[in-house]
């Protein structure tokens, strides 16, 4: 049985109907990881023992006639900035290289409560700061679709893992595109729900007002299933909305788009985009028409002009604040010094990598008196204008289709040559975070060089269900992506 090709739904159905056991599935997927990850390097920590223990519990429940939940026996992986009880959580940083949390993030707990089996932790850009998964202390992850290219980031390990068939669902965090852009690069489906849809409790913060948990899958059906499990109120996170969510799986059963108004973004610099990604937008628009939707061209002038600048002010200001707790005193890397100040300086200098230090410095600067008024305050005003512009758009349209990344997967090492180009890559994705909107990166096929092409779907705030319905219908036309063709270490 090729367990790695199965969807989460198929695995769970088989476990519940006792066609196969959770332990069997786990063995198969762990075997695949061991076979291929020497090259891809998507995984930083495996927790085999705990995983087998959990899988056996699921099998026991099934044999006792109990229902383990909608993800019974489905192996999953989480980005290494999700706190996992008793399992090292590094954030890809030297700072937290040995840190073992004493609790599970709410998202992890919800997955486990639904019967899913945690296999391990995936690689990421250090503290989720990057778009290439190259700044991790564990070294870079490679793109399973083309190992000369990056998998995107910062949740590059999770996206690569799903593309490589390690598991049907992996979790990431998305602050400016960190779930969706790597999903696009690796040719899988990624969703950043509305801010407040999924609890952030236990996610090591990058920027409080932008961070959101998202799932990465190979099809929208599994995405909806994951959302049903993840999107719940949480008493440990007051920014997580308390409303009772209707079924996302039901939303994913939509057949057509009749009565749906879809805006197609125009008015941006198409010449600086990789051509296949422009064609992807056109294809998606055609699918919409075929499915009965009303399609119109729309523009977001303020958003497209200022999003990146605004995003970096807001995100880095917050990052400098949230990362201030790493002083080497209670957890994380500690370096000795003559006095407290020297201990702090040495610990932080040795613990944080170059990109993280750069972002903390910029963030500290924009919150400093004088700069705060001239940079940070205007950025928060622009942020409100972006939210307003989107709100106006969604009074006319039910969803927006636009690019997720302006470029196909980057070649390795580009971040060193041209960091600003990488920052500009957030132009489309970060807008959803700034406005708190749900957004899905949807694969719409592959280029001749077998590089994935994709579009971004954005919906109104808490319009996550409608967005899943749209993605589900479009996926029927585009087809859900297959697993990447891999070869094991040494043989290619």
């Amino acid at each position, binding site marked *: 049985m090729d367990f790695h090709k199965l969807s989460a739904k198929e695995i769970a159905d088989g476990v519940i109907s006792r066609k196969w056991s959770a332990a069997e599935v786990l063995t198969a997927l762990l075997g695949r990881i061991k076979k291929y990850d020497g090259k891809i390097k998507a995984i930083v920590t495996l927790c085999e023992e705990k995983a087998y223990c959990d899988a056996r519990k699921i099998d026991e429940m099934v044999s006792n006639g109990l229902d383990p939940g909608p993800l019974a026996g489905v192996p999953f992986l989480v980005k290494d900035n999700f706190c996992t009880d008793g399992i090292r959580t590094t954030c890809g940083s030297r700072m937290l290289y040995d840190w073992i949390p004493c609790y599970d993030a709410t998202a992890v707990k919800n997955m486990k409560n639904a019967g899913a089996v945690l296999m391990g932790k995936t690689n990421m850009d250090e503290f989720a700061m990057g778009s290439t998964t190259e700044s991790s202390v564990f070294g870079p992850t490679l793109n399973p679709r083309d190992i000369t290219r990056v998998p995107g980031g910062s949740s590059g390990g999770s996206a690569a893992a799903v593309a490589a068939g390690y598991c049907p669902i992996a979790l990431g965090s998305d602050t400016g595109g960190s779930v969706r852009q790597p999903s696009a690069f690796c040719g899988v489906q990624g969703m950043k729900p509305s801010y407040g849809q999924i609890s952030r409790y236990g996610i090591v913060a990058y920027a409080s007002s932008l961070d959101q948990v998202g799932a990465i899958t190979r099809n929208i059906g599994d995405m909806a299933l994951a959302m049903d499990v993840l999107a719940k109120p949480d008493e440990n996170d*007051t920014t997580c909305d308390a409303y009772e969510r209707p079924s996302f799986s039901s939303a994913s059963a939509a057949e057509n788009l009749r009565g749906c108004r879809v805006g197609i973004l125009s008015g941006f610099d198409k010449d600086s985009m990789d051509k296949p990604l422009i064609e992807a937008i056109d294809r998606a628009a055609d699918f919409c028409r075929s499915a009965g939707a009303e399609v119109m061209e729309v523009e977001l002038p303020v958003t497209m002009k200022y999003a990146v600048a605004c995003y970096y002010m807001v995100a880095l200001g*917050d990052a400098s604040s949230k990362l201030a707790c790493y002083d080497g005193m209670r957890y994380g890397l500690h370096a000795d010094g003559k006095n407290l100040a020297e201990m702090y300086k040495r610990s932080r200098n040795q613990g944080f990598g170059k990109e993280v230090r750069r972002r903390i410095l910029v963030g*500290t600067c924009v919150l400093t*008196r004088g700069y705060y008024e001239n940079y940070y305050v205007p950025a928060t005003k622009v942020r409100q204008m972006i939210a307003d512009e989107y709100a106006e758009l969604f009074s006319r349209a039910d969803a927006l289709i636009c690019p997720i990344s302006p470029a196909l997967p980057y070649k390795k090492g580009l971040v060193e040559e041209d960091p600003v180009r990488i920052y500009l890559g957030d132009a489309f994705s970060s807008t959803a975070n700034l406005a708190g909107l749900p957004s899905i990166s949807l694969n719409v096929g592959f280029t001749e060089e077998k590089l994935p092409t994709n579009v971004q779907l954005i919906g109104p705030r808490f319009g996550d269900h409608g967005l899943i319905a749209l993605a589900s219908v479009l996926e029927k036309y585009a087809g859900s992506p297959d697993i990447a063709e891999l070869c094991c270490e040494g043989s290619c």
Partner: protein
Amino acid sequence: MERQVVIGLEIHLQLKTKSKLFCGCSTDYIGAVPNTNVCPVCLAVPGTLPILNDKAVELAIKIALGLHCDIHDNTRFHRKHYFYADLPKAYQITQYEHPIAVGGYLDIIADGRPKRVRLHHLHLEEDAGKLVHPTSDGRMTGAAYSLVDYNRGGMPLSEIVSEPDINSAAEAIAYITQIRQLARYLDVSDGEMESGSLRADVNVSLSNPDGSLGTRVEIKNVNSLKAIENALKYEIARQNRVLDEGGRLVQETRLWDDMAGVTRSMRSKEGVRDYRYYLEMDLAPISAKPDYVEKIRASLPEMPWNRRDRFIQQYGLSIEDSVQLTEQRETADYFEKCAAHGAPALKCANWMRMEVQRILHENGIDIKDFNVSAEQLGSLITKVEKKELSNTQAKDVLAAMNAENISLDEALKKCGACGGPVSGHALEEIVRKVFADEAEAVETIRSGKDKKGAKVKFLQGLVMKETRGSADASETASIIQSLLK
């Protein structure tokens, strides 16, 4: 023209909640083993988020209403950043641009004069941990290392910031005392400076002869009312001296050294830190809707100053008595219950100020721990009024009731005061017995040698002793006189 003293106070009140401001940890930290009242949230373990304690918001609104502040709906928290070992997140969650309450005032009486002190605002914030610098020889300085205890970290504080309306040390003390009184009346805080549940930062300057404001100095580390008074006196004198000598003051923070009785410069304005105040996005805005605020307002007890004025009007108490009896809510409650039990209010006030106060003081206890109920004291006073007991007997009975935690009836038996005062024939018998025992003294009086009446008083004392104080003094005197003839 003399320079005017200008003082502004920032008072931190530790709010009496069961759990900390942003997590479920116990607030019962005094005497707890270091770092036991802690959890991932208050230790800033990565991934954790703060959850606002609604009770703390309610208590802050209570005290703000008591201070006539305007309560703002939809206020926010900010992060105040600085690196120090007592602050696990490296920022303190506090309120900055949008405090929960603004404006308001407090009417105080200092040196017999009434005065209104306006308030700038009141906000909520979390406390920091505590550093301990142990030395091998027990000295205060020169520790080789520091230890940190996070039990206090995250305790809920309400900071009350006054306008610079205070013009003397006496006014400052009156202001703090009255805030403390209010906090206790409303059961919002213990308000104890000794244990740190009330702390004050003092800002003092001397206005120039032309009326313009002088250079402001902040005094920290003033941990008792006495310290505040002394620090203010010292600082006012120091500033006057510097200015008299033609010098210039610098805007700075000075630490009060209680042992040496001086303030010392800690940091000057040049070193003022930029706290990079930043909106706390991990917390939703505080919602204090008008109907919620009105519900709290309706639940407030009578304010101490209103009660003080009412006692004067309703019971005819003197200002002095009224101030003393309303100082603590429990004392005032006790008084009113006692008076409601039929005893004359003035007598109740007298008994409470004298006898009850004495017993409490001698036993080092609070009115809450007094074993005699207000109703029983009322009955006791009524008995004295009806002349069923002498004053002296009643005092003994009261002391016994408290000491042995017994009822009025039991105490009356115990003190042999059941039968009421000794009088008439029985009293005459006792006088005769004393005369027989002290024949010499009787002879001295009869021979007219007791010019100053000392011997008569001596005999009277003996009779009182024999009757265990239950005899009426004037009846005793008249019997002695008649038998002497």
